[in-house]
């Protein structure tokens, strides 16, 4: 299981809100990479992430990420394939697999675990581990999830503060 990254964050929010923040473009454009991602939430449904105006201005393609929904069990579990199209080298590595697991405890805190099975996608792995952050490519999963937590708990993403 090398070539797999696992991230976990505890968020003071109900699982339904965390689920919505992951799956709805109104929410998922407000943290992390900030491109709206539309998901057709049924097995085989399309996942389409569009570049925001800032990304387009830097020459990003209109569709920045894509994939397919594999498994949906709201608000507990979502499995999807995931490919990044921003960079030709990473795009050529093909589809990886993401599993989101949400578990709400009695005190209204949701534990969100993201498992990213990379297979043979070393550059995607480096990107999502935050290795290219200095180049302006974002801080990967730890950055995305810290931002998501901030948005749901304070109403503001980190860049808004």
């Amino acid at each position: 299981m090398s070539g797999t990254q696992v991230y976990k964050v505890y968020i003071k929010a109900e699982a339904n809100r965390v689920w919505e923040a992951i799956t709805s473009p109104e929410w998922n454009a407000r943290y992390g990479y900030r491109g709206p991602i539309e998901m057709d939430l049924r097995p085989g449904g399309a996942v389409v992430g569009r570049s925001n105006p800032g990304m387009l201005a830097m020459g990003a393609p209109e569709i920045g990420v894509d994939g397919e929904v594999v498994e949906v069990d709201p608000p507990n579990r979502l499995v999807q394939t995931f490919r990044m199209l921003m960079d030709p080298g990473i795009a050529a590595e093909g589809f990886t697999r993401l599993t989101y697991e949400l578990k709400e405890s009695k005190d209204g805190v949701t534990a969100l675990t993201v498992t990213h099975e990379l297979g043979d996608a070393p550059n995607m792995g480096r990107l999502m581990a935050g290795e290219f952050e200095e180049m302006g490519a974002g801080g990967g999963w730890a950055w995305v999830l810290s931002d998501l937590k901030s948005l749901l708990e304070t109403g503001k993403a980190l860049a808004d503060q």
Partner: protein
Amino acid sequence: MDDDDRVFKALADPTRRFLLDLLFARDGRTLTELESELEMTRFGVMKHLKVLEEANLVVTRRHGREKLHFLNAVPIRQIHDRWIDKYTSDHARALLDLKRHLEDDEP
């Protein structure tokens, strides 16, 4: 103890930092693999891993019969994000760019 206390307490021990270094170098290892890198009983390594798990710095996953340990960078990122805002990090980036620029220009 709040979440930050648990993170700092977990990081305050050299063995636990070494375990995180091992997982940073190669993620998804079993207890047996981690134990082989340390001069310590299996029980001792388990205790350290438990502290790291309670601080959310290590996350475990079942893979067949094996339990694999992964480094979770999110709590460290939260500490980073709390004290280093985007302006500071932009400044830090500008300084790095400047350093690179100056070093490249050297004859």
